[in-house]
Each structure stands twice: as structure tokens, then as C-alpha cells.
């Protein structure tokens, strides 16, 4: 292994700027003459807009413009869209309601933007925002997905009767029914997968700018996928043509999915910049982010799993209602369908699966992909059923899993996915050993002596990452292809710039991508620069989400490097006056096989650009190659997490006392970075299980609207993690990578809840398992025991 090559824990190249305060996030950028935008938002969850009075706001000092939905319409600015078409089981297309960037006739959730104030300072804009008077006709509202389809529920969009966006299904209903009917045991669970707010610590921000000289627009934006933003804003919203719009995603302070989507605010900043002929900046406040960022999860599910007398799973039937909020966000439709039901086989050989999903509108913030997106929900269903099944059948939960593991690959599940490689036994075994599960009962007794309840919980998860094969997602309704691009530009001095369509917002691509390039070309890692996040620099790309950057983006880089090597060999052969086929490239030198003749990388790169020794037409000067890589299958990271909790039954407080994570991510480029991704994912999963959960009150007002009421995990809420790996290489891409970004968030919730239910001896606990909830569950369980 090279000291900085694949497998080396290279310290991150990008860190220097962050630890010295020299990072450059969107709000750190100040454009000459920039002014500020503040949005006027609806205080009501559901209301008709009778009139908007802006005259008083316009006259305040510093105010340059007060713009409303009527102005958007007058300028023929299009609606925001959801880019993944889902068809209902009756064949009808999903009911996508119009989503204007500024609501003109009706507001559908608290926080729905109605108008924008553009002023010299944000204080002036805020003052003016308070002077905008809106005459509302308040309507009844609904936020609970389980209530949204009921007769008499408030109708949010005319296009969607019963607030139903689609009624979709996957799998074989008859086979699943038959399997359950003949099963020896059927385990059933009602599950609410709690709604979460992603809460990247950097709030969203945007600066729109218009150059009247060139007619060119620029947008600096906190986005995970600048090219997709440019495509949607030009092709659908129509603010600017694609070739006249530059989108820059500078340093971005965390995304977790929430910065994938195309939001009203960035569209409005861009549009308003032309109207006021000044750069327009908007920076989201945290309280505003709670309202305006796309949330995650929010499923209501009833699931049944059948087992035969030997503990083998016979079938699985799942019915889910998914809350998509007030409008369909960019990729929202795909999350509770193809990112969810397709993973319901888990790590198990399940003969029959059927899943029906209704997506509904409610008067709540839009819901879209959040770290894991669909896969945490699927894993939670499967792994809770397995744990409860083990308890009902009286089989050790690890043994029950072993009995059902898929053993042969490739494995076709009944729900589309074809698992290419894995070794689920290996990760379970390693996890059990590392967690010292054999001594658990001893630890449980020790806890009991201190008046504490101890529990252990397993989660053997699987996910589909490397999103995604374009042909596959196209057939499933995606509006875009999900390949990735790369361009390798070699400079005359031998240093290299790699342009990628992926975008890093914490993942460390500037290091991992450089590791691969430096090793391949035999050059120092410091001579490699990764360029990303600017549509003027990178031709096109799909961005970063779905644990796709290494599996898809880096594969594109490898493909481009193949071309670079081929071209460089041509040049070397020319310089060495040898046959191209005889050139061997290793450790940064081109040699003629079987001779001592060689030429260094730097000499080849220089000659590529001076071209003095090239003769006429046979060799083109320069050394730059591009590649588009489109995978043929998803990748399937999998693993086993084990959580141990200790509960104070008097207060209900749960402490996680041990965490073991064994993951199979295929080839690992940088184990330090991969472990960091695992840590962060687990923390978000623990957050979902113990702390986080959106609450709307009876008037559809957001109760958890700030960190005062929404519990974001702090350092002392979380344990240290024992992280380990097993490796089966992914056969589908050149480096064998599966992806690691979401695993922790997918595995953790079920592991935690399995541990808590083990500790309290009751399955009756919902997420988040707050102290109050656990206390109540313990009390109820105790009462039940007394009564019995």
C-alpha cells in the first residue's frame, strides 16, 4: 500500500482552511453591492390568501422591492417540481400540485413563503416584512398522515382527492397473503417512523446575481448538486437559460439530503437580483430552517412477518402511509417507494413480500430525502419484526437472523433488487465478538444491582447505494439519469486537477479522490487538486447523496484516468521511440518493457503541452480526458450494529453504554474518513431513536421550531463507537466500492429500539424514546405484569 494510496488513513487536505477559519461558505461570500432578502411566511397552516397589502412595507427606509407570487406569475416564472414520476397501482400518474416559489392564492403550511422583501440591510428587510399585511381566510388543517385521507379531512390541493398523491405497491400481494396465512407464527407491528429535521449546522443560504451586460445569472447556493439546481431552475422554473446560469456550491456546512432540493428561496434570490439589479443574498435563520427546510421520514406503517416452525421467514406484508407534506419536494416521491420498499427483504431470504404505500399531502413542511432516505424506514420495519419475532419464537435474535440470512450471491429479492455480493454471517459474527455479547447477562445483572435496566439490541441492515444506474432509475420514473462525470486535467508541470460532478459537504472528497489519483499516477497527493461545485468549471454532474460519490463519482475518475494513461503511454512511446504496446506505467515512470529506457511522468506531461517532439497529425497535444460513468447496478453495503442501553426506570432516561458497528463497504479508500462517516450516521440514527421528532400541534403549528424544543444530539447524549469492518468487494465498479455515508443512520434506530424494548420487556415504545416516553412505557409494563 502506498502511504497515501487506497486504504491509507491520509489526513484530510481540506482541513487546513476549516481549522483556521478560512473556509468559504455561502454566507462568507459578499458580492459588491449585495442587498438582503427576507421572506414573509404564512403563520397559518392552511388558508386562502384574499389580499396582500405591501404598500406600507415599500415605503420603509432601505427597501428596494417587495415581491409576491403575483409578480412571479407576471414574469412567467414556473413552479418548483418533483422530478421522479410515480404511478399508482391503477396506472394513474402521481398528483403533483402546483408549487409556486411564492404562494399567491393559498398557503398550505406554516412557513409557506408569500412575499420577499429586498432591502439594503436585513434589519430593514425584517422591519418591512412586519408591515406586509395579508388577509387570510383560514381553513381547517391536517398534519397527521394517518388522518389525511379520512372523510372530512381538509383538502389541500384540488388535484389530489383525499389528499392522496399516489397509491403505489410493489411485490406479490397474493403470495405474501398466502405466506402469512400458512405461517406458524405471524408477528405484527404498528410503527410510526418519526419526522425529523435534518439540521445541518450551516443554515441554507443563497446569493443571486445578474449581470445586465452579459445577461448572465450567477447563484451561490448551499447545494449538494449545483448542476441539478441549474437544470431545474432553467428548464422548469425558467428564471434563466442553462447556458446563462452559473451555480456555485462553495463550502457547504453539511447537507444530509436537505441541500439536494431546489427550494423557493434560491429561485427568488436569482429572480429578484435582476429586478433590483443588485446581488440579492438570503441567509436562513435556524428557526426559519425548521419551517422551510425539507424534513425527513414521517411514515405510519403496519407490518406483518410470518415464520415457519423453524424460525424461517415465510413472508412479509407492509402497508405504509407516507407524509410528503404540503408540496412535493424535488425527489420526495421516490423516497417512500423505490428507496424504501425495494429494501424490505433486508439481509434475508424472504420468499414473498408485498408493500403498499400511499403518499399523502398534509399541512406540514415538505418531506424529502434525509440521510438514508427510505432505507432507514425499511430497515426499521424489518429489524424490529426480526427482534420481536425472536422474542415471540423464543429464539436468540442473532440465531434467528442467521437462520434467514441470504447465503448465495447474486441474490434476486422479490422486490426488484439484485444483491451482488455480501457476507452477512461475517459481519454478525464479528459484531457479536466485538460487543462481547456472551457476557451481556453478567452486565445486565450488574446494572440491575444499581437499579438500572439493561438491554441489548441488534440491527442487521442492508441498503442500496451508489445511486444509481440511469437505465434502472429511468425505468422506475426518475426524471434524470444518475451517472457521474469526471474530467482529469494534467498540467504541463505534471500536477493534476480532477473535476467531478460530485460535491463534498463534509465527506472529504478532496482527500479520497486525490488518494486514488495520486496512487494511480505515482505523483505526490499534494499535486492533485479536486475541483467541484461550480457549473462554470465542471461540465455536468449529479451531485452527492445516496452514498454515491465514491462508488459512482470515483469510478468516473478511474475511467478518465484509464484514458489519461492510454494517452500518456502514446506520448511516452513517441518519446522513447518504442511501440506503444511495450510501454509499462508504474510508480510514475513509463518504461519500455525489457529495457532500461524510461521517462518520468513530468517529462511526459511537459512534452504533452510543448508538443515540440510531436510530429504532425499523429499525436494530439495536451493531456486531458473526461469520462461519464454509469453503473449497472446499485451497490449493497450491509452490516450489523449492536447497541447496549441502560435505563433509569425512575426517570426513564436512557443511556447508550456501548455501540458496536461492523460494516461491509467493499473497498475502503480512507478508513479514517469512512469511520467518521459511520460515527456521524450512528449519531443521527440515535438522534432519531432517542431525541428527535417533529411535533405539530392541533392547529398545525410547529411546536418543535427551534433547538429549545427539538433535541439535537449533544456530545453527552452519545457514546463512543466501536467500529470495525468486513470486506466483500462490490463487483459492479472498478474499485469495488459500496459507499458508507448513510449506513449508521440506517442501522442505528432499530438497534436502539431493540435494546430499549429488551430492557423494559415491552414492545410498546415509539420513537423518539424520550425519558418521558420510556418512563411511561416502563410504568405501563410494570402495571401489566402486576395485573397478570
Amino acid at each position, binding site marked *: 500500500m502506498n502511504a497515501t494510496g487506497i486504504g491509507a488513513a491520509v489526513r484530510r487536505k481540506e482541513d487546513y482552511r476549516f481549522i483556521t477559519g478560512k473556509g468559504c*461558505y455561502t454566507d462568507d461570500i459578499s458580492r459588491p453591492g449585495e442587498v438582503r432578502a427576507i421572506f414573509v411566511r404564512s403563520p397559518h397552516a392552511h388558508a386562502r390568501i384574499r389580499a396582500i397589502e405591501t404598500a406600507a412595507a415599500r415605503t420603509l427606509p432601505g427597501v428596494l422591492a417587495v415581491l409576491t407570487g403575483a409578480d412571479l406569475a407576471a414574469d412567467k416564472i414556473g413552479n418548483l417540481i418533483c422530478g421522479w414520476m410515480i404511478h399508482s397501482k391503477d396506472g394513474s400518474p402521481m398528483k403533483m400540485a402546483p408549487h409556486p416559489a411564492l404562494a399567491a392564492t393559498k398557503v398550505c403550511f406554516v412557513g409557506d413563503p408569500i412575499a420577499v422583501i429586498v432591502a439594503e440591510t436585513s434589519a430593514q428587510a425584517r422591519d418591512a416584512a412586519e408591515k406586509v399585511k395579508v388577509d387570510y381566510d383560514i381553513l381547517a388543517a391536517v398534519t397527521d398522515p394517518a388522518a389525511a385521507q379520512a372523510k372530512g379531512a381538509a383538502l389541500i390541493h384540488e388535484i389530489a382527492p383525499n389528499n392522496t398523491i399516489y397509491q403505489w405497491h410493489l411485490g406479490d400481494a397474493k403470495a405474501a397473503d398466502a405466506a402469512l396465512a400458512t405461517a406458524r407464527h405471524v408477528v405484527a407491528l404498528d410503527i410510526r417512523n418519526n419526522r425529523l429535521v435534518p439540521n445541518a449546522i450551516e443554515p441554507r443560504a443563497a446569493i443571486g446575481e445578474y449581470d445586465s451586460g452579459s445577461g448572465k445569472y450567477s447563484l451561490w447556493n448551499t447545494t449538494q448538486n449545483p448542476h441539478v439546481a441549474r437544470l431545474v431552475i432553467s428548464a422548469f422554473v425558467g428564471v434563466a437559460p442553462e447556458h446563462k446560469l452559473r451555480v456555485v456550491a462553495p463550502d457547504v*456546512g453539511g447537507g444530509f439530503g436537505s441541500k439536494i432540493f431546489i427550494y423557493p428561496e434560491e429561485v427568488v434570490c436569482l429572480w429578484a437580483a435582476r429586478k433590483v439589479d443588485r446581488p440579492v443574498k438570503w441567509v436562513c435563520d435556524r428557526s426559519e430552517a425548521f419551517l422551510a427546510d425539507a424534513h425527513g421520514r414521517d411514515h405510519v406503517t403496519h407490518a406483518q412477518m410470518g415464520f415457519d416452525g423453524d424460525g424461517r421467514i415465510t413472508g412479509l406484508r407492509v402497508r405504509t402511509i407516507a407524509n410528503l407534506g404540503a408540496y412535493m419536494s424535488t425527489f420526495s416521491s421516490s423516497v417512500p417507494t423505490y428507496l424504501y420498499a425495494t429494501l424490505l427483504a433486508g439481509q434475508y431470504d424472504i420468499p414473498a413480500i408485498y408493500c403498499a404505500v400511499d403518499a399523502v399531502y398534509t399541512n406540514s413542511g415538505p418531506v424529502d430525502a434525509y440521510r438514508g432516505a427510505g432505507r432507514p424506514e425499511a430497515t426499521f420495519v424489518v429489524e424490529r419484526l426480526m427482534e420481536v419475532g425472536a422474542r415471540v419464537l423464543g429464539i436468540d435474535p442473532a440465531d434467528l437472523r442467521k437462520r434467514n440470512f441470504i447465503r448465495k450471491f447474486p441474490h434476486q429479492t422479490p422486490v426488484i433488487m439484485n444483491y451482488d455480493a455480501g457476507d452477512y454471517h461475517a459481519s454478525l459474527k464479528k459484531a457479536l465478538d466485538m460487543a462481547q455479547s456472551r457476557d451481556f447477562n453478567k452486565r445486565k445483572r450488574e446494572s440491575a444491582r444499581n437499579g438500572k435496566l439493561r438491554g441489548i439490541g441488534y440491527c442487521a441492515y442492508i441498503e442500496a447505494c451508489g445511486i444509481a444506474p440511469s437505465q434502472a432509475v429511468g425505468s422506475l420514473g426518475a426524471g434524470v439519469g444518475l451517472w457521474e462525470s469526471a474530467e482529469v486535467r494534467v498540467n504541463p508541470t505534471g500536477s493534476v486537477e480532477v473535476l467531478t460532478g460530485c460535491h463534498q459537504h463534509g465527506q472529504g472528497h478532496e482527500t479520497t479522490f486525490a488518494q486514488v489519483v495520486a496512487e494511480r499516477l505515482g505523483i505526490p497527493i499534494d499535486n492533485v487538486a479536486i475541483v467541484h461545485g461550480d457549473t462554470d468549471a465542471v461540465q455536468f454532474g449529479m451531485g452527492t447523496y445516496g452514498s454515491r460519490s465514491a462508488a459512482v463519482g470515483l469510478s468516473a475518475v478511474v475511467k478518465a484516468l484509464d484514458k489519461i494513461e492510454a494517452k500518456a503511454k502514446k506520448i511516452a512511446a513517441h518519446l522513447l521511440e518504442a511501440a506503444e504496446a511495450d510501454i509499462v506505467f508504474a510508480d510514475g515512470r513509463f518504461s519500455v518493457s525489457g529495457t532500461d529506457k524510461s521517462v518520468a511522468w513530468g517529462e511526459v506531461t511537459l512534452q504533452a503541452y510543448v508538443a515540440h517532439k510531436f510530429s504532425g497529425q499523429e499525436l494530439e497535444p495536451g493531456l486531458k480526458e473526461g469520462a461519464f460513468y454509469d453503473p449497472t447496478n446499485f451497490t449493497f453495503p450491509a452490516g450489523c450494529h449492536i447497541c447496549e442501553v441502560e435505563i433509569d426506570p425512575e426517570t426513564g432516561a436512557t443511556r447508550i453504554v456501548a455501540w458496536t458497528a461492523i460494516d461491509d463497504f467493499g473497498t475502503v479508500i480512507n478508513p479514517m474518513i469512512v469511520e467518521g462517516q459511520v460515527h456521524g450516521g450512528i449519531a443521527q440514527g440515535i438522534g432519531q431513536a432517542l431525541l428527535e421528532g417533529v411535533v405539530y400541534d392541533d392547529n398545525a403549528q410547529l411546536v418543535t421550531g*427551534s*433547538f429549545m424544543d427539538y433535541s439535537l444530539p449533544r456530545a*453527552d447524549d452519545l457514546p463512543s463507537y466501536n467500529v470495525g469492518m468486513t470486506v466483500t468487494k462490490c463487483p459492479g465498479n472498478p474499485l469495488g466500492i459500496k459507499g458508507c455515508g448513510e449506513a449508521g443512520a440506517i442501522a442505528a434506530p432499530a438497534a436502539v429500539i431493540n435494546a430499549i424494548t429488551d430492557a423494559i420487556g415491552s414492545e410498546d415504545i415509539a420513537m423518539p424514546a424520550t425519558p418521558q416516553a420510556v418512563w411511561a412505557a416502563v410504568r405501563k409494563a410494570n402495571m401489566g405484569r402486576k395485573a397478570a
Partner: protein
Amino acid sequence: MPAATLTVNGKAVTADVDPRTLLVQFLRENLRLTGTHVGCDTSQCGACVVHVNGRAVKSCSILVAQAVGANVLTIEGLAPSATQLHPMQEAFRENHGLQCGYCTPGMIMTAVDMVNRIGHDLDDKTIRHELEGNLCRCTGYHNIVKSIAAGAKAMAAGGGVRRAAE
């Protein structure tokens, strides 16, 4: 408000600003020291932590007017020189104590303050408790805790500690 003077990273600066200007706004917008970040509006996230007269404070919850005459140290002034990092900065890099980098300046300023108050031998529990006012969404804190423990030791080993008050 009359123009106010204070010292930021060793340099005297004058603030002639609206009274409602928070210290963080003054640092970011007037001095263009954008390493100090804003991540919430309820004084909880700690992305804005700087040192005022040698103590960590949340620069989003203090008016620049309150800091008149004070010594302010920000992340940009922490390294002893342009070529040398502060040991706590180095520890964060060495231990992968950051991912997106947004909470990092506040974490590092809090960590240095922690060492200044409590000492160089910091156990896991103490560090986690002391981080009550700093939120990170990327790292799960594991490597931040590791970084701070290592940074604290490195500071004892003679790494330059510069406090604005000194």
C-alpha cells in the same frame, strides 16, 4: 452609539455601528473575519464561540457595545504564526475531528477555553459534558472528543497557547 474600540486578534479596531450589532455580526460583516459562524438563533449551537478577555463566549449573544475595550480572539487569531497551527487546530486535523467544518471554529475555541479552565488531562466524560454548548451534526462527536483530549495534551507539551487577555 459612539464609535467603540476593541482589540481583535491583537489589533485595535474601531466599531461605528448600529447599537443592535452583535459581536458576531461585527466580526463577520465589518472585519470580514468569517471564520466565526452562526448556526442557530437560540444561543445553543456554539458555532460562534470566540474568546472575550480570555474566556469563551457566544458572540451571537453579546453586543459589540458590551465588548468595548475588550480583547477578542477568533479562530483566525489562534495560530501562533502563519506557518504554525495551534496544537488544538492540529489535533482536530490529526484526529479527523471535523467533516463539513462549519462547527469547527466554535469547537476549537471552546476546546482551548476548556483546557485553559480545566487543564490538560481531560477525560471523555468531562469533554462531553463541557461540549454542552456546541452542536455538531457530522461527526457524532467521537472524533471531536478524541481531538480535544489530544489537543489538551499537546498544549501541555508546550504548544503555544495565546490568550487574548494576555
